[in-house]
């Protein structure tokens, strides 16, 4: 089998990963550039980070982004998990086809359409655009991603565990919180993280659904990029990348520890 891990395969992977990572690496490197020109190296400097923290507009936008991200990711995780349960547990209910359509369609729906339609809804029901509408919009598109992530874990879930708990007299809600939830928790956590990243990342839907006073970081970055590329934006991007990288690494470490623990428990159980 290892013989087939050939030179061709290794080359494909190395080139592919270079393509995926090089632009990000260059972006990070040039955030430490002394020169104002983004593409000419003028020596090492952290001055753009200093000026970034004195840029009140960017800081306000970052704060809005984080709050929307935390609230919408949490709500989206609850709704997305419910949607995943509905899709996997209840194979027949009225309107199931429509329901699964509404869960999968937002994954590929062009953002301009989702953004425009949500905006027109908010106008039609007379909601003032701002922080609240922004959060509602983010919940809506990210809950579907959570649903898909959680659903993929639920389909491999061994339901006899739940049946055993119920046979022993546990009510369904208790069974869910004591049996089901711990098993699907890793998927729920990665669903939350995905929802959070999608939220802090979104430009198009935010631009449509946000109002005065609720400018998010991507909206701010976008308006500055249109005026020209500056090292300050590189610095802002680098910080965002750093936060996300820390989150992902932490999550994978937690996952790994959980996995090791589980294996140990299983072995202990087998030894009895």
């Amino acid at each position, binding site marked *: 089998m290892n013989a087939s891990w050939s030179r061709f395969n290794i080359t494909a992977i190395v080139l592919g990963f270079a393509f995926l990572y090089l632009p990000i690496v*260059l972006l990070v490197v040039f955030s430490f550039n002394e020169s104002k020109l983004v593409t000419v190296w003028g020596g090492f400097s952290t001055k753009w980070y200093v000026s970034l923290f004195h840029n009140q507009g960017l800081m306000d936008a970052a704060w809005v982004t984080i709050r929307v991200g935390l609230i919408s990711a949490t709500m989206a995780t609850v709704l997305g998990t419910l949607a995943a349960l509905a899709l996997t547990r209840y194979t027949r209910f009225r309107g199931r086809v429509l329901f699964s359509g509404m869960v999968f369609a937002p994954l590929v729906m062009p953002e301009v359409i989702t953004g*425009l339609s949500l905006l027109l809804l908010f106008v039609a029901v007379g909601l003032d655009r701002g922080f609240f509408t922004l959060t509602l919009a983010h919940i809506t598109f990210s809950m579907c991603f959570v649903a898909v992530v959680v659903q993929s874990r639920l389909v491999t879930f061994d339901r006899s565990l739940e049946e055993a708990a119920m046979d022993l007299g546990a009510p369904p809600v208790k069974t869910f919180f004591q049996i089901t939830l711990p098993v699907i928790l890793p998927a729920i956590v990665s669903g939350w993280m995905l929802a959070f990243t999608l939220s802090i990342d979104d430009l198009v839907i935010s631009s449509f659904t946000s109002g005065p006073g609720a400018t998010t970081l991507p909206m701010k970055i976008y308006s500055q990029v249109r005026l020209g590329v500056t090292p300050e934006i590189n610095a802002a991007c680098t910080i965002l990348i750093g936060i996300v990288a820390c989150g992902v690494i932490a999550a994978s470490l937690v996952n790994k520890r959980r996995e090791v623990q589980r294996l140990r428990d299983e072995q202990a159980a087998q030894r009895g």
Partner: protein
Amino acid sequence: MKHPLSAVTDRLVILIPYFWLLFFFLIPFFIVFKISLSTTAIAMPPYTPVLGLSDGVSGLITQIGEFSFDNYLWLTQDALYFNAYVSSVIIAGISTLLALIVGYPIAYGMARAPATIRPTLLMLVILPFWTSFLIRVYAWIGILKPEGLLNQLLLATGIIDQPLVILNTHTAIFIGIVYSYLPFMILPLYSALEKMDYSLIEAAQDLGCPPMTAFWKVTFPLSLPGVIAGCLLVFIPAVGEFVIPDLLGGSQTLMIGKTLWNEFFANRDWPVSSAVAVILLLLLVVPIMFFQQAQARAQEQGR
């Protein structure tokens, strides 16, 4: 034995997400359609008439009578829109094909990698996806600019003596789309290729089939579900893409997502942008249904 509570919770589990999506995803489409039939007005919101029951049923009927298909006529009369739709589909199609060509060897290499390092490789593919889409597109501006890093490198090595103009061309859009959507192509391809039984290829080769023929006759057909899922995941959002053509394609590029954005934000013409959205949706409804069927089938198999 069913617990009395379970009927209530069962229903809530379905109803809460159901109504959320109904209200925030499905109903808005009808509002878009309704407004696409209205006319522009200098007001807030900038369109008339507003369908509502404020004037009773007869008022509603008058309002329906005032519906006009002018916006759709307008879309057919101005060649700009037609060209934007066509060029969006072409650009998305070419980008999807390029993403498949770039992504397939990577997915294949990952699927054939030793099982111990596969999770790491998988995480490395997903990781860029966690960094901002906008940032990743933005990073390419610095690379593709006339005085950018790519041209500096090519000039310094003497491969070219004139800087290449890549930014603000279709090439830049292709690069941007392939780069941004590559993980969406690799992941379904990988999961199809990883499940494959490689003894089939060995069998084919033992029987004297050359490696390339074995690939086209065995590997590729077996990976077809992954190919279809990956292509749809790239193609559908790419047709309506706004950020990439806007930042990398320059003002010359015609793509429908950009046209919609401009109608909405620059011209403040909500009815026309709604009509643009309705036509875009009609264009994508078939691929989206394909995608849903593929998802449903994958779900059935996973069971």
